[in-house]
């Protein structure tokens, strides 16, 4: 089969700085858990239910709701800042 060189159409690989996760807690007992309602229908219910289950079964001290109105826009700065006060967090993607 005859071939010819062609230019790759995919562009440069991203130069994203690798995120460094903090060490995980040894237990969930007594922790503050942030749960993000991303604005999708029922998202608040899903993360609140998951948070309630974690409190009941694993002793999470407080489930702290956070939210943004529209899933297709980034969370406002004040919401992101609020996440700094949580020990762990759950966010969602879906529909």
């Amino acid at each position: 089969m005859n071939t010819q060189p062609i230019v790759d159409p995919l562009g440069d690989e991203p130069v994203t700085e690798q995120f460094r996760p903090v060490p995980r807690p040894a237990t969930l007992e007594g922790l503050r858990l942030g749960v993000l309602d991303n604005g999708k229908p029922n998202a608040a219910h899903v993360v609140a239910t998951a948070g309630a289950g974690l409190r009941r079964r694993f002793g999470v001290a407080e489930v702290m709701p956070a939210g943004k109105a529209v899933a297709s826009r980034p969370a406002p700065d004040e919401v992101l800042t609020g996440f700094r006060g949580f020990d762990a967090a759950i966010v969602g993607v879906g529909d």
Partner: protein
Amino acid sequence: MLVCTKPFLPLATAIARQEGYEALPVVTLPHPIGGREPGDLDEAVLGVVDGIAALLLADPASDVDRAGSTERTALHDAPTDPSAFLEFAGAQGWGDGLPLIPPTAGLVDAAVLATGLDPDLDLGPVPPDHRGATVRAVAANAVMAGCTPVLLPVVIAAVRAALQPELNLQGLTTTTHPVTPLVIVHGSVVDELGFNAGPNTLGQGNRANATVGRALRLVLQHIGGARPGETDRATHGSPGKYSYCMAERADSPLETLHTRRGGGPGGAVTLVGGEGPHNVNDHGSTDGPGLLRNIAGTMATLGCNNVYLRSEMLLVLSPEHAATLVADGFDRESVAAHLHEHARVDVRGISAGNLERFRRISPHLFDAVPDDGLVPMLDRPEDLLVVVAGGPGKHSVVVPTFGATRAVTVDVERS
């Protein structure tokens, strides 16, 4: 950690990678979450609580090591036979399903040369994969789409516009909504490069319109990694996702979009995150208010995002409809003001579930309105973009937008 419905897992992974942590722990739930009674979800959610706890406590995984795999091959050895090339491209995950021109080094070099730019210049990261849109890669996609070299400055302008934050390309390319960036070409570049602003401007038959729109789509799909059914989560998509490009008539009797948007002497493009066009058939109205009544009714449609996410809508007036309005003393501002006033949806048509959601997302409108009230489609007259295009005939079109987006205009720079 992330909770994700199963079909959205590829998108979740792409977003995590975007943030530099591809190994972000994910628990999946059955799809869908929306459109169901909240209590019906509890069993599934409580069923993954143990898994969530385990991932919250597990040592953070080392991120996916992409060292050594981040260098892309600059050149591929591809078959010269057209059918074999299509097979090859398909195997790479390239293409929109239509035939592609092989981006040979010679064709791409000519395309790069026509931009007057350094081939290694990176126009910016294209979401969701955030690969960099180098001029060389954009040119390769334009060649694949069938662009002639002279069209490259328009493609470059469209890519620059697509990457402006106001357009919200991340949202446009990953949503379930049937949206895609509409490229409106305006100013001197329309006639000079042979764009069609006349009959069938939104349709087939003109190489400039067809290939510039297609080039942008291939950039989003190849460089951005907006893969249908994976990271591009569109429920149905839109025919405009093959190509969505039109041009403004220079003989517009209303203030042109080019003037309104401050386009430069070499022409410009305006990108609008739009749905498909919705027809306004009006053969009967002989005066401005009558015609605007029909347009307002077409704009006031409950299923579109503008109802609750707001932002802009686009009105593409035919020359004959524009002439009717001008003959009755209307100009662009008064058209927009009239439609802001009269394009309203009846709240009684909105379901209780949607109304609760709309009140939460757009309280400035929905909190104060009574259950039998009317809600304007536009927050301000300035949120209506007006352009005159198309050929003879008594049809105009309305293009609702994604809502979480704003139009962006970028000048075409030709050396």
